[in-house]
């Protein structure tokens, strides 16, 4: 179903969207405010998609995802600060780009390591218990960060515990973040559609049966969990470098729930759903500011309704496919196929003609 053609189509679509955004931004139609919201939407998309791997594919409700985000955010922020202090990669343009990329990847890796540390013991638990364990872990992370000197005030050696971490270089550039989001989604999508993804689904459907056919369930669970944590850490790093300030209370239980809400709305194993829910639920409250007073109230009611009428989330596991849509309206694949064949035939004919010519 996902032939080379569809990846080409998707790549073109994503690039087109990018170009449109570039034009809109450079001409000033999308001002800093709108770009800021779009940046937050990208962060939400990565968070929701990463949560999908654990919640949708592995079938384990994680309600401490903000903990991993916090690890990524603080790690990345402290790394760029340390680089700036040591005057490494502390210039402009390309140097900042590399500093940013190194920092957020490091944040992601540390979050992934914690994912393994947390996952290895707790993934033996099932269902509700695992959810509660992740919640407990998220709280532990928060309390520890709040009490670390290097994570507050100006950070590093000048830090003071309990304060907001301030003065983080705002290195997150929308263009870069856009492509990070695209790459993350592409990676997670391929992962989910790969052999590994199918194994995760098998574990989700029946763990005992999966074990019986020789799947080392714990290993796969930890793999998926730490991958989920990696991308949460990555998103955290971007968040830190967009905001420039990290307050100790940001990554609390409610933050975790926010992403669970997005994941559920989008459909727990649909990446297209993550993109749509992440974008809509970030943009909507801004667009309807007066409604925003009752945002959480509306969310909670909507969430209950979704649980009653569509327990698998709005999109379920449906993935939007641009190629399919094109097929539906333009008979795209067949046309391309026909064109290819025609070209090939022409080539053949040409070759044959050339061959004939050669023979002469």
């Amino acid at each position, binding site marked *: 179903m996902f032939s080379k053609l569809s990846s080409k189509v998707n790549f073109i679509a994503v690039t*087109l969207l990018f*170009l*449109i955004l570039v*034009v*809109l931004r450079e*001409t*000033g*139609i999308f*001002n*800093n*405010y709108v770009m*800021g*919201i779009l940046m*937050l939407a990208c962060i939400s998309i990565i968070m929701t998609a990463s949560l999908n791997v654990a919640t949708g594919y592995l079938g384990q409700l994680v309600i401490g995802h903000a903990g991993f985000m916090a690890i990524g955010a603080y790690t990345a922020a402290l790394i760029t600060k340390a680089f700036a202090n040591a005057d490494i990669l502390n210039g402009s343009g390309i140097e900042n780009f590399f500093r940013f990329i190194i920092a957020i990847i490091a944040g992601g890796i540390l979050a992934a390591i914690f994912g393994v540390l947390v996952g290895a013991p707790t993934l033996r638990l099932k269902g509700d218990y695992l959810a509660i364990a992740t919640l407990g872990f998220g709280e532990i992370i*928060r*309390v520890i960060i*709040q*009490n670390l000197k290097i994570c*507050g*005030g*100006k950070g590093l050696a000048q830090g*003071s*515990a*309990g*304060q*907001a971490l*301030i*003065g983080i270089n*705002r290195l997150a550039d929308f263009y870069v973040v856009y492509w990070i989001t695209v790459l993350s989604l592409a990676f997670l999508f391929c992962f989910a559609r790969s052999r590994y993804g199918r194994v995760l689904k098998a574990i989700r459907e029946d763990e005992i049966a999966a074990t019986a056919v020789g799947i080392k369930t714990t290993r796969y669970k930890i793999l998926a969990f730490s991958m989920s944590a990696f991308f949460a850490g990555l998103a955290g790093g971007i968040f830190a470098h*967009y*905001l*420039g*300030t*990290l*307050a*100790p*209370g*940001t990554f609390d239980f409610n933050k975790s729930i926010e992403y669970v809400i997005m994941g559920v709305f989008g459909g727990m194993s649909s990446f297209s759903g993550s993109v749509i829910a992440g974008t809509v639920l970030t943009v909507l409250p*801004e667009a309807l*500011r007066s409604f*925003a*007073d009752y945002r959480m109230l509306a969310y909670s009611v909507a969430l209950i309704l979704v649980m009653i009428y569509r327990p698998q989330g709005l999109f379920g596991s449906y993935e939007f496919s641009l190629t399919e849509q094109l097929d539906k309206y333009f008979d795209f694949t067949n046309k391309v196929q026909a064109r290819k064949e025609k070209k090939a035939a022409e080539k053949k004919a040409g070759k044959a003609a050339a061959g004939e010519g050669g023979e002469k």
Partner: protein
Amino acid sequence: MKKLLALLLAVMMILSFASCGDKKDEEKTQVDLGVIAPLTGSVAQYGTGVYNGVSLAVEEINAAGGILGKQIVIQKFDSKGSETEGVNAINALITNEVDAVIGAVISSVTAAIAPLADEAGMVVVTPTSTADTVTEGYDYVFRTCFADSFQGKLAARYADKLGKTKAAVLYISSDPYSAGLYEAFKAECAALNIELVSVQSTASKDDTDFTTQLTTIQATGVEFLYAPCYYSAIGSYIIPQARNAGYNGIVMGADGYDGVIPYMADPKSMYENVYFTNHYSKDDVNPVVQNFVKSYTDKFGADTLNSFAALGYDAVYMVKQAMEEANTTQDKEAIKAAMADINFSGVTGSFTLDETGTPQKTAALLGFKDGAEIFVESVGLE
């Protein structure tokens, strides 16, 4: 494919033309004042106080003819106490080209918006963010309140004045306000040779049980406890639990105690020996204060009358004064310069600003008697 590219190019061109018609610097006929405050969420009570104070001041100014003849129009943004929402709000206000911004209320939100405002050259006056660092290094960011380090120092000096050589602390380790006050108190205690015999902390400002920490503090026999917490915890939990644990010494706090009276448990006598530093005293005979207290109470009732409201009220008048002294409501560079040199007199005192944009003023030391606030003295750093 070619068609598509052509279409794209066409779209790009239309869009670039559309944005060519740049707005000229016309003289606006009104003063746009942005306000960023948490109006919903868990810290809404502070934001509500500030916003009430701001709207009262704006109403008064508009009734008296506005600033340089122009009426003030408020653009309010709810930060919900979140840094993310705060950044969204300041971006929107910068885009809307407002003339000045009052906000944010919580220090961590102000810390997030300060660099953005400074970069964009937007004058920001935060009424209530007391964290030391929020205005440091930002030319365009000012405040109406004093900083945490000031209040922490005052508390240590008050302990010294009372002849205490030992003190204990109970603070909220996750709360920047509380942790900041503790750090300042600790530093000044070290300078004054006051020994901190017990430092206790609690994880969240929503905690309700402090008995264990207070028992530990009581066991050290100390007579001065610095507890920079918030009014509801002080009134409902900390003081009753401290007195139950047998601690009858002094409990000292900062402006977070303002508003404690409705939360006092019986008997009210246990709140004697509780002191705090505040931005102003409601009982101040200064007509400016009395006028404010009266108009505020008439409009919003006495329930939300606290220093947050007073500071919000003063912040608007600071902006007004700076604009009048600069003789412009739009030239932000000139407004900034006038603000930096301001010599202001309002509800929360008379002051000038130091190089970080922080007022140099005195604080009111308040205590309690029979469940009512009493003014003890005016304290400063000389």
